[in-house]
């Protein structure tokens, strides 16, 4: 089933007309409602009525994560606060988090693209979905929830965690669809075995996995473990949350909903567009959003794109799985982690440039573990074990408050963290993704 066949299968010319229409309305809307963008457009020499077709998009300025951070919280809003119905917050690079604000129409858009995601993965209207993405400020849980509501699926909002209960609910209600992070799917398979449940006898048949990068070999492992179809969903909270792109049953790239999220792939150094099939940074323009519409947002995700029609009949362009990042962000249990966030916390506690290292590891079929090594400086060294453990616990607590993910903090001797070119090697990622 295709949720919005008229756009998902439209021929390329019709799609471009639609995209052009959207962009022609979007730019004046932003220009007149968002002073920050007005300035940005003026600086780029773009007058709002000069944008007449989707091809004009190349003349528009990029928007970066720094723009979001610098104008936190309300600077990039185009809609007034009274029209904002829901706010989500995700972790930013330092200090200020990244903010997402939805108007009523934005929530309707989110519901619509998430219904497309569910259909694209193979959900049918009378299916039951177990949503094991975290509910709350993280967009995963509520995003799936809204899409499933839109499609009329039966929803079991288990949220993340409490694995034994997740498995019991799977057995009691036999949901055919599961949504969670890929690493959690593998973890649950192991837990199921421990509890004497054969995952291959489990009820889930379709998995919609996302919020962290994963490879085809992990896909194979999940499909073998659960005897299911494992599909990849892509999204980022700045754009809308999950619901930007989704794999169909053919698992040959993720269909990006380009009638509302216009994709470009650029060379991150030069900003020039690269050819289809070539790797580059994904840039997205939200063509119809009202709350915080973004022009040419640089996702920092490295992908390639194809415009060929898929075997499933959808004409939408398809992006590859994420092949890398242009920055040093890592994803741990679905949460974005920037080394700069940890640095920010340590500066706050120690008052100086700290020496630290982040070690991410995943024991076989276990959840990701983050260990932060922090060098002890003379000023903070105390003869009292109590003071040192307090220091360690404070660091741990503050990092966890910023990241919303559990970490282990280990105090280490000075100069034990490797320094390359004067700068420490900040991240050691031991996982095989």
């Amino acid at each position, binding site marked *: 089933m295709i949720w919005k066949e008229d756009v998902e299968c439209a021929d390329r010319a019709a799609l471009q007309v639609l995209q052009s229409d959207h962009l022609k309305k979007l730019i004046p809307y932003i220009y007149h409602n968002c002073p920050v963008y007005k300035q940005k457009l003026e600086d780029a020499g773009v007058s709002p009525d000069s944008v007449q077709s989707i091809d004009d998009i190349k003349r528009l300025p990029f928007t970066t994560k720094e723009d979001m951070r610098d104008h936190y*919280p309300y600077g990039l809003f185009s809609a007034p606060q009274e029209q904002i119905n*829901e706010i989500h917050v995700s972790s930013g690079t330092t200090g200020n988090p990244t903010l997402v604000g939805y108007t009523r129409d934005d929530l309707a858009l989110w519901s619509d693209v998430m219904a497309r995601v569910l259909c694209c993965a193979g959900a049918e209207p009378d299916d039951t979905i177990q949503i094991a993405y975290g*509910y*709350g400020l993280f967009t995963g849980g509520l995003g799936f929830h809204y899409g499933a*509501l839109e499609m*009329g699926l039966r929803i079991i909002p288990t949220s993340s965690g409490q694995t034994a209960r997740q498995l019991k609910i799977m057995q009691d209600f036999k949901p055919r669809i599961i949504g969670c992070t890929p690493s959690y799917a593998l973890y649950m398979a192991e837990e199921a075995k421990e509890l004497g449940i054969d995952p291959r006898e489990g009820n889930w048949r379709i998995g919609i996995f996302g919020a962290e990068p994963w490879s085809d070999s992990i896909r194979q492992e999940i499909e073998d473990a659960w005897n299911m179809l494992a599909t990849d969903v892509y999204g980022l909270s700045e754009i809308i949350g999950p619901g930007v792109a989704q794999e169909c049953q053919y698992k040959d790239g993720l269909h990006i909903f380009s009638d509302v999220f216009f994709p470009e792939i650029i060379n991150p150094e030069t900003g020039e567009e690269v050819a289809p099939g070539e790797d580059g940074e994904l840039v997205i323009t939200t063509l119809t959003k009202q709350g915080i519409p973004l022009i040419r947002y640089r996702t920092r995700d490295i992908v390639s794109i194809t415009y060929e029609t898929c075997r499933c009949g959808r004409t939408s362009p398809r992006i590859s799985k994420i092949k890398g990042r242009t920055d040093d962000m890592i994803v741990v249990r679905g949460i974005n982690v920037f080394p700069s966030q940890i640095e920010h916390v340590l500066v706050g506690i120690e008052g100086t440039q700290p020496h630290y290292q982040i070690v991410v590891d995943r024991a076989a079929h276990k959840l990701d573990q983050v260990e932060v090594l922090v060098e002890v400086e003379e000023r903070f060294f105390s003869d009292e074990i109590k003071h040192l453990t307090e220091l360690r616990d404070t660091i741990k607590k503050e990092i966890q408050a910023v990241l919303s993910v559990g970490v282990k903090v280990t105090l280490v001797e000075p100069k034990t963290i490797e320094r390359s070119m004067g700068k420490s090697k900040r991240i050691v990622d031991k996982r095989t993704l």
Partner: protein
Amino acid sequence: MEVPFWNKEIETLDRSSLEKIQLERLREAIGWSLKTPFYSKKLAQAGIGSPDDIKGLEDLRRVPFTVKDDLRRSFPKGHLSVEMTDVVRVHSSSGTTGIPTVIYYSREDLERWTDLLARCIVATGAAPRDIFQNMMTYGLFTGGLGLHYGAERVGMTVIPISGGNTKRQIQVMKDFQTTVLHITPSYLLHIHSQLQADGIDRASLSLDRALIGAEPHSENTRRKIEELLQIQAFNSYGLSELNGPGVAFECVCRQDMHVWEDAYIVEIIDPETGENVEDGQEGEVVLTNLIRQAAPILRYRTRDLAFLHTEPCACGRTHRRLSRIRGRTDDMLIIGGVNVFPSQIEEKIMKIPEVATNYQIHVDKKGALDRLIIKVEIYPKLFLGEASKLDALRQHIKEEVRSSIVINPVVELHEPGSLPVFEGKAKRVVDTRPQE
């Protein structure tokens, strides 16, 4: 005083019209119930085989009670009146051990519940312009998603932050100038302690209202919350078996909670005999849900103790008011043969100004005797003073509590932050006596 309404016609309906609606809907609910395996049997035993057997509201008393174990026993599908395909939502009670209680909703059920929650929110004076930080846990628990639906219906700006991570909660309050919170009372008190510890000026926040619920608390706790945080606190009542929050809510008068009687029939019974008590007398709250088709529930014994007001409310609503929950039939402690409700102790200690925001009740056995130990956090500056003053305070707390429950407690004074903190429902009572 301006009294805001969500649905003024229904909320101020005269008594007889309200009862007419109740009767119509009760018949409908009986009809739904007869389609469930559980109730068809139960109602047949009571001689009710069709909605027509309900001639008047008084016939409800012929319906046998439903208890929590009934819901557990017929898990998962004994309570369904519709095909599983018509169920669009499943929630479950917080039963982390054993078999949870499962609640099913059809699309219409969710719609009616959402509308009721919008009614609750508007009754407190909150409006679309408000920024609503929903600090209750999201997921299977009904507290988070329930108010989420209601707040979106009202058109507020919803921040679905869920529970936990106090620092981030406070950051979000500051950054977005949150005006309305939905939170448990114990967590709100903890938030206050954290604000103090971080030296955050109350004036830098825009908080107007807190909707507090999910755990019983005393009037003095509410007052304390209102004074410390300079906020209006509104009591909320609901339980997942009956949909979740939204059974009863306080209006701008803040003088106990209106039960939405077009959606629920409330009865107060003597928990021992099962007989209905006079209006105004305390007893166990029994609720019948008139608006849930997928999994109807009749005369559910909540184990909550409360009474119904007989006086009308100044706001003009005709829906009767339920007192705060004064205890639970199952949280009653028997200490040295005396019945004690934790709420009685809370009521006493929370009115003592030196007492800070957290406390815990321990019961253990010393030799053959039960011993009640009350641990309270007091403001840190008190520890700097003379020891004799601390002794006097201890003595004072002891006497206050004894005057209420007859038992002589051991009182321990603690520094703020030393007792366990709960970022959701608090666990106030620790009973370490060996099980008989």
